């Protein structure tokens, strides 16, 4: 009798523990900060900095020809908007999209080959690691020499910028897959293709997406480098034009647009990452009260 009671108590205790494990994530969700609070927190620093700059410039502490007030930059943006700003934004965005697309696609293919095959690693990786060490601007003279000053050198430079973070993310992500998961997959006699599709790529996805996100942010940087050197349209061209005409307001307007566009594209990538990696059981940072 007493052993039955003990077994029943044991069973109830274990059940309660398992139910608690299911309820725990729900409880965590209920206490999560509202999204708007995070957005406001993120805006706090730039808004404060802009307000301080506005006051400093309006009060004459900072000369406006060196650092125009934010409201003056807004006026400049409105003025540029009436004179083809969208065309500049569109040109830069298209270059980034095309360059990043080409670079990321090649990086995924070659990174996967290096991650999956030791022979491919021995063949390709030493060369890629050497190429990765070359500063971006070192490519410019060569690309201009080979490809002229049209779109091709710009796209290639952006693709080079995007390539290496994505390549590293894919190759190291595949090599970092838990061997124990692969052992489970081997029990089910998966072919190499099925193993790659069903286990290696999903398991490497966190690293791949981090690589893509870093690659996209570098694509924006390389786009500016490309447009500063030879372009008649684009945000890099606006930067160059502002410098040549001593218009700090145009330079800052272009910088502000680069920040906004970079943030939007990174936000899109972050949203994709969040959606694709909803399964990940990772630390989300401590909540301050």
């Amino acid at each position, binding site marked *: 009798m007493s*052993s039955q009671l003990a*077994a029943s108590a*044991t*069973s109830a*205790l*274990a059940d309660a*523990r*398992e139910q*608690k*494990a*299911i309820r725990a*994530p729900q409880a965590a969700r209920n206490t999560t900060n509202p999204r708007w609070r995070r957005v406001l927190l993120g805006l706090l620093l730039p808004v404060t900095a802009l307000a301080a700059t506005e006051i400093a410039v309006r009060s004459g502490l900072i000369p406006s020809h060196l650092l125009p007030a934010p409201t003056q930059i807004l006026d400049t943006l409105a003025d540029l908007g009436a004179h083809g700003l969208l065309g500049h934004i569109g040109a830069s965005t298209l270059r980034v999209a095309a360059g990043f697309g080409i670079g990321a696609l090649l990086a995924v293919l070659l990174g996967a080959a290096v991650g999956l095959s030791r022979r491919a690693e021995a063949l390709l990786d030493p060369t890629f690691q050497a190429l990765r060490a070359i500063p971006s601007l070192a490519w410019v003279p060569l690309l201009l020499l080979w490809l002229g000053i049209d779109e091709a050198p710009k796209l290639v430079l952006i693709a080079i910028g995007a390539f290496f973070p994505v390549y590293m993310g894919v190759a190291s992500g595949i090599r970092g897959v838990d061997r*124990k*998961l692969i*052992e*489970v997959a*081997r*029990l*089910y*006699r998966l072919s190499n293709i*099925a193993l790659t599709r069903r*286990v290696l790529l*999903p*398991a490497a*996805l966190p690293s791949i997406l981090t690589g893509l996100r870093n690659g996209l942010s570098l694509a924006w940087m390389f786009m500016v480098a490309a447009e500063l050197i030879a372009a008649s349209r684009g945000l890099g061209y606006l930067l160059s034009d502002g410098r040549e005409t001593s218009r700090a307001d145009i330079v800052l307007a272009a910088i502000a647009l680069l920040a906004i566009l970079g943030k939007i594209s990174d936000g899109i990538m972050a949203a994709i990452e969040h959606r694709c990696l*909803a*399964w*990940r*059981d990772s630390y989300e940072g401590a909540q301050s009260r």
Partner: protein
Amino acid sequence: MSIALDIHITEKRYGDRAVLRDVSLQLQQGEIVSLIGASGCGKSSLLSIASGLDRDFQGQIKMDGNPLNGVSREIGFIFQEPRLFPWLTVAQNVAFDNDGDPRLVKRLLSEVGLDDHAAALPKHLSGGQAQRAAIARGLFTQPRVLLLDEPFSAVDAFTRMKLQDLLLRIAHEHRLTVLLVTHDIDEALYLSDRVVLLDGTAAPALTEFHPAPSPRKRGDIGAAELKAAILDSLHV
């Protein structure tokens, strides 16, 4: 009764070190056998060889008298950790084998007490629930032999007892032949028809103990005597 699994390992080496030498173990159809021994004595290596995952050894594994070359749908394997694929739901994990019958998933989840968690991700499961899901996955190919490598060592004592009873029920219902590696002598004595003490390179490599016939109760006096004998053999 016929022999379901016949394991004969002439030698298994890791580099210069032999971990198993002249080990022969036969499992009768429907028998539950526990393999115990000190750390590093070759228990997990033997299980890995029996599963077909490790083919780098000298010897032969036979199932129903036929040589086994590599992994087989007839042999299920439950690891020490659940090893669920974190990006798949519980149901998708259970049905990971593409050749299995998808209609089985619901029944297996019901059998292991996870009916309500088919759509849950592994991160939302407790350790015990995750191991239940792993057991359901191990049964999805409808194996006749189930190999378990310290499957309950990572869960607390209460959950372990529940999982042990679950294993007994499932082994009976599915008429499974079971080879269980464990460090827990009480677990081995409660679950097994036969307890085999392994010292991979000693002679003899295997010493056998026979608990009372099933059904057994936890903490039987006979089990206590056997436990003392096993501890004595382990020089503990």
